[in-house]
């Protein structure tokens, strides 16, 4: 598989063409906007939490490239129904996946358990071979992070 095919796996293009959880939520849902100053990509995350800190609903807005849009779509599908803690854990393993090449280490295949946990998101691991695209892939997560902090500080 060429690097390019590895970057643009079918599942990524599928999320790009048919984004999950696309749309908006009305307040009291929390809203956070993130953007990539280098390319202009924008992600808007709308976040609705339950009383028990579960992500009851999440919607995604904004515009950007296939990587940032598919990553946002996959992220929304992966965290919906999870607790904030679980979402943050997932964010941790996703960012780990993304930054492997960033730190100049060997590119280690994720363990089967990790892949299972990340689900569709694991398909994004081809991105690490394209350092400038890592920011595209992590933009949605950083924006989610921002939305979560806002729910916490609003408490």
């Amino acid at each position: 598989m060429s690097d390019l095919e590895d970057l643009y796996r079918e599942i990524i293009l599928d999320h790009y063409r048919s984004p999950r959880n696309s749309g908006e939520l009305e307040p009291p849902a929390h809203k956070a906007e993130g953007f990539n100053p280098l390319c202009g990509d924008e992600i808007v995350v709308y976040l609705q939490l339950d009383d028990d800190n579960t992500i009851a609903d999440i919607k995604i807005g904004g515009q950007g490239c296939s990587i940032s849009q598919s990553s946002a779509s996959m992220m929304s599908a992966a965290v919906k129904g999870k607790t904030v803690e679980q979402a943050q854990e997932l964010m941790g393993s996703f960012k780990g996946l993304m930054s492997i090449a960033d730190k100049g280490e060997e590119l280690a295949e994720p363990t089967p358990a990790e892949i299972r946990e990340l689900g569709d998101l694991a398909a994004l691991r081809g991105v690490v071979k394209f350092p400038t695209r890592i920011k595209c892939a992590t933009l949605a997560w950083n924006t989610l992070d921002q939305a979560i902090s806002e729910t916490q500080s609003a408490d």
Partner: protein
Amino acid sequence: MTTPDFAALKKDFPILQTERHGKPLVFLDSAASSQRPQQVLDAMDYAYTHAYANVHRGVYGLAEAATNAYESARLKVARFIGAPDSSEVIFTKNATESLNLVAGSWGRANLGPGDAVVLTMMEHHANIVPWQMIQAEKGFEIRWIPLGDDGKLDLTELDTLLDGAKLLSVASMSNVLGTINPLDQLIEAAHRAGALVCVDACQSVPHMETNVAEMGADFVAFSGHKMLGPSGIGVLWGRMELLEQMPPFLGGGGMISNVTTDGFMPDAVPSKFEAGTPPIVEAVGLGAAIDYLESIGMDAIRQHEIELTAYAMRALSERLGDSVTIHGPSEPSERGGVLSIDLEGVHAHDVSQILDSHGVAVRPGHHCAKPLMKELGVNATARASFYLYNDTSDADALVDALADAQSFFAP
């Protein structure tokens, strides 16, 4: 004069002999920064190995040689842009510093509440943010000349916008749209309204004949790295009378005639604006770049780029039809060789990524012109830009790669 053989120029540029993913490099990002010929690299190498020392203050031979090399670069720049007096040429680190110098020195000294500066909706951030920074300090108004049809400025309200303004600062050519702005008309109107004119000439000086005296502007800024010169050097040209009245911008060695614990007296122009050790060898490189450009001729370069742009626009529309949009003027002779492309169904970022796999280098993004992007209703375009070393084979490679990107992303 015989037409230069543009196809043969590529061999002067070592980086254009390299490959990407096993394919010859097709470099189409000169609007961001150009490549440079061996002649420029050799001139810098010679300076570092035979004529390097700090300039201006040395008596020994090397210092004299370095000073002569640095000052003769100033003379070359002056001649290249038709400056009446070479002392009007100030070396900066890039065009951004040149524009900050105008805003920070002239602007801080001359702008206040009730004043206005006029910009256009197609300015690069380098010609927006410095004014916004001084605005926050001094509280004047910034007015915007709107975008009209076909990627050109809408000048219907020009006189109203200029009424009471102290300065118009405008790009000679848009780095997104390629639009060549009507400087004659703009400068004439601004001067009639009593406003000075600062021209961000980053995109025009490398690509067409420039004569600041005929142009009639008050300040002109551009960068070396977009015109075959090295990174690390820019130019500000200004009318001597203005430069003399302006306070210094950065303070330090080389820009003073005296310093005591009570204060300092600035030196004469241009030293007044060149604090610290200047970009010595970068100036030498820029001088060599000018020699190279002049050996080909700016009119020939402009003609070559018009033809190449026309060829590429035609090929794009023939091959990709309505699925491709090229922002900016539709008539090649009214624009520079900068093609901001929207490809239906493929985001600019992805376009650029896929083109890279074909060895074709184009730049995705907002191109440091976010207000313009907002106006155009896009958040990114894929920009292909031509220079003297590009030819129709590069345009063909671009079209082929775009067609591939489209089929790659086709549902």
